[in-house]
């Protein structure tokens, strides 16, 4: 690290970095986003802030660097409320990574973007250049120093956005969905960078495997309230809590990536039901002629970038095909060509006939596409109008349009949403609505571009269930091997505009495990999955253990109440690991303060110490 002359960090009084007490926040439209949030964050904490879409996570982190002011309650950073000069200083040592990197890269070149923070910290101009180089070097973008950010790929932008914060050497790093829309290679780079970060880390994410790898503490928000604050291990091992807050991602743990090691069955173990395997294509499909076909297909953008090079691709009716590959491999361009949005060089056949200009213009009636960002295809004032848009363009009569709207909304579990405004729906609902807008057109082929991006696990599970039920021929573009395994039977691996492999999904997933093919190797996720499956192996038994709890109790004549610790023997559902087929086991840290009935325990003598640090007593009698 270069010696730089930036403002020194503010001194820390006590052991608390952020002290939040009964924080409340209501948006101008009346929505209560935070309710009575009390949270203490210490230096070096690594916290995963999790919860369903709309639970208040982003609102909370926007308070942490003063982007939202405190309406009611108290929030202090290093002992002082975040306002005026203290807020200005605090912002220089609290880094916030936004979900969309385009929001964060607002300068003219990467150099200026990365230099922006250090210059505001008071680093002299001549010392900024080495800092910028170092930060961009850390994220592997040193060669793009003077590039404008609109020339970067999405993954590069995401890393550049992180570099803008690393150059400020922040004491606190807050990340908002850092892995959203990243391919696995980029995700691996990101996790390597964050693993080495030594400050306080607060991470908003729906990707609990990512959070498990990076964080030690989990704070669960639900409808603006903190519902749980415990260790990451406890969160992932406690399925009822995960399920309660729509975070249960256990369905992913049976994904092929997580199957390298299996657990011995234990008596009473809460087993996760294995998901159904994707249905094979109908027998008739195997012999049927190709529904769509590309032969020696090439496409180059006007700036000369060759996005597709000699593509040969056949898709039969009823098939479900995944297209995978790193960012920039040509997947989206391939979809655009299949949709007729872009026209390249080579043969493009649909239903066995070559597409001429007129037939290409009519392709939208037979091929439907769901975009990665639902905002790109939602623009009407109500959900019913949105779903009816396509059928109306097809010239269908009103009754048929109404029938299709109802059927499509029911199919995506949005019955009763007809008059709702699409803009006001949650992320998961918007995604399902986007699918309904396409389903109402009853296309023969359904193209899905990253359908689960940005969804919480519950939304993800529901969407997978819906997609699995659809009868259409499907093309799925994704970075997520789990989805590939769940929804497709065949996989194309693309790289630099070419199809590298075209084989059965089972073979592809096997390839994943053993060869780390392409950019989809997430070895850390496989390891995390195994570990979490072991943690979720849970059963109940009793043996003496210590509790910290509060209830009225007696010391001679004195009856009072306060938290105190002593040993009991009674049954608990424990999450723990057994040594193979042995009774020996160890418990991971449990919440030591909990409330439960102890028969006659209040009447037993309590001879625990009352030292100076004993919490204030409540006189009962």
């Amino acid at each position, binding site marked *: 690290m270069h010696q730089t002359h930036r403002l020194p960090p503010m001194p820390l009084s006590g052991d608390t970095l952020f002290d939040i007490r009964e924080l409340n926040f209501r948006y101008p439209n009346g929505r209560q986003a935070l309710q009575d949030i009390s949270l203490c964050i210490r230096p070096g904490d690594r916290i995963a802030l999790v919860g369903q879409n709309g639970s208040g996570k982003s609102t909370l982190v*926007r308070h942490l*660097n003063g*982007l939202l002011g405190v309406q009611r309650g108290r929030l202090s950073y290093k002992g002082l409320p975040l306002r005026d000069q203290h807020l*200005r200083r605090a*912002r220089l040592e*609290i*880094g*916030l990574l*936004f979900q*969309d990197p*385009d*929001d964060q890269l*607002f*300068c*003219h*070149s990467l150099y*200026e973007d990365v230099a*922006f*923070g250090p*210059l*505001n*910290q008071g680093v002299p*101009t001549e010392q900024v250049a080495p800092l910028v180089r170092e930060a961009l070097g850390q994220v592997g973008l040193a060669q793009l120093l*003077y*590039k*404008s*950010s*609109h*020339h*970067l*790929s999405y993954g*590069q932008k995401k890393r550049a956005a992180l570099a*803008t914060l690393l150059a*400020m050497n922040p004491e606190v790093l807050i990340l908002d969905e850092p892995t959203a829309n990243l391919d696995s290679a980029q995700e691996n780079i990101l996790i390597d960078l964050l693993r080495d970060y030594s400050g306080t880390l607060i991470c908003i994410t729906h990707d609990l495997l990512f959070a498990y790898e990076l964080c030690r503490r989990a704070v669960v928000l639900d409808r603006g309230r903190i519902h749980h604050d415990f260790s990451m291990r406890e969160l992932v091992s406690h399925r009822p809590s995960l399920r309660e807050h729509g975070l249960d991602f256990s369905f992913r743990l049976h994904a092929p990536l997580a199957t390298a090691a299996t657990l011995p069955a234990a008596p009473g173990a809460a087993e996760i039901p294995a998901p159904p395997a994707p249905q094979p294509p109908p027998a008739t499909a195997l012999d049927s002629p190709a529904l769509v076909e590309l032969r020696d297909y090439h496409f*180059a*953008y*006007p*700036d*000369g*970038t060759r996005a597709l090079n000699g593509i040969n691709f056949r898709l039969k009716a009823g098939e479900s095909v995944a297209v995978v590959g790193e960012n*920039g491999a040509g997947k989206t361009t391939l979809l655009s060509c299949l949709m007729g*949005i872009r026209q390249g060089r080579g043969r493009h056949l649909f239903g066995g006939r070559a597409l001429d200009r007129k037939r290409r213009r009519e392709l*939208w*009636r037979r091929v439907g*596409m769901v*975009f990665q*960002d639902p*905002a*790109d*295809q939602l*623009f*009407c*004032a109500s959900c019913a109008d949105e779903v009816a*848009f*396509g059928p109306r*363009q097809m010239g269908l009569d009103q009754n048929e349009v109404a029938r299709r709207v109802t059927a499509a909304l029911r199919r995506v579990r949005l019955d009763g949403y007809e008059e709702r405004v699409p*803009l006001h729906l949650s992320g998961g609902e918007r995604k399902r609505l986007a699918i309904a*807008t*396409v389903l109402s*057109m009853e296309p023969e082929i359904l193209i899905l571009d990253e359908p689960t991006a940005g969804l919480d696990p519950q939304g993800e599970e529901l969407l997978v269930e819906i997609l699995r039920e659809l009868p259409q021929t499907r093309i799925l573009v994704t970075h997520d091997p789990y989805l590939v395994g769940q929804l497709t039977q065949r996989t194309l691996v693309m790289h630099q505009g070419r199809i590298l492999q075209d084989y059965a999904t089972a073979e592809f997933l096997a390839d994943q495990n053993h060869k780390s093919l392409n950019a989809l190797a997430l070895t850390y996720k496989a390891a995390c999955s195994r570990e979490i499956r072991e943690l979720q192996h849970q059963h109940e038994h009793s043996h003496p253990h210590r509790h910290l709890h509060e209830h009225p109790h007696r010391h001679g004549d004195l009856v009072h109440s306060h938290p105190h610790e002593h040993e009991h023997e009674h049954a608990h559902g424990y999450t723990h690991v057994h040594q193979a087929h042995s009774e020996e086991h160890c418990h991971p840290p449990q919440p030591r303060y909990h409330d439960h009935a102890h028969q006659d325990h209040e009447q037993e003598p309590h001879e625990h110490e009352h030292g100076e640090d004993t919490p204030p007593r409540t006189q009962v009698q």
Partner: protein
Amino acid sequence: MTGTGPGDIIVATPGILPLVLLILAMAGALLVVGRRRAAAKRSGHSPEQNWSVPVVDGASQGQSLFHRWDARFKLVSLLGLAFFIVATRSLTAGLLALGLAAAALAAARIPWRRALRRLLAMTGFLAMFVVILPLTAVVQPGDTLLVFPEIARLPFNLRGLELALSICARALAVALLMEPLLATAPLSTTLEGLTRLGVPAKVGQMILLAHRYIFVFLEETRRMSTGMNVRGFRKRTHLETLRVMGNFLGMLFIRSLERTHRVFDAMQARGYEGEFPGHGQFQAAPADWLKGLFFIALGIALLVLDRLWLP
């Protein structure tokens, strides 16, 4: 044709006008086809390139007298020269100015292709002058009129044509001059120079942010438009199209507004308090003064020449 001298009426042979129009149309078509083929032949090796983006300061990494010139002096002197060019009247002065701008472009070592593309963007607008002015200029004594039998009631005034060409020459000269002015330093440095000259900092920041986000908004517009087209929407001349376009623009506005808030949040989160931190090292050297004086003198000389000697 009949008639030869100034003040004459020249009557064109029938068929000349359609022939000229045909030649112009063919030239235009050839140009379009040529550009498309050139684009197809060009090979891009970087997977990062996504779509064509006209970048204002695309040639900022270079070594020329313009690249080494202090942005403040460059701004004052080249804008001054542009002012003098615009103040000239004659076609000859306009052509001289065009030559000067071309020489400046060569000295700045900016690729001609880039400059020509920029000029091409103006041609439609300028072509309108070349067509309209000769047909609408008030006929004065001594004007030479060219009459095409096909449109005999609309004589083609050669003084109007000269005026149009003079305007075109000056416009092209100023446009060419913008290349050495804006393309030879990072846009942020140029705008910082502008601020140092007394222009409010907010103006520079707004230009900088507009230049950055215009591409993001264009991309969002393209994606939304594609989202409508794949569901069968085609623009037609009926009320439904108007209603859909209204929804589309409204949604685009909402997305842009939301993005604006997020960008401002991101700026604040990294310590923004109303001013972008400066990067440029502005130190006036004698060479900066000399170059500045040279271009101002060139402008004055051009104006004097135009007013005193040129017709």
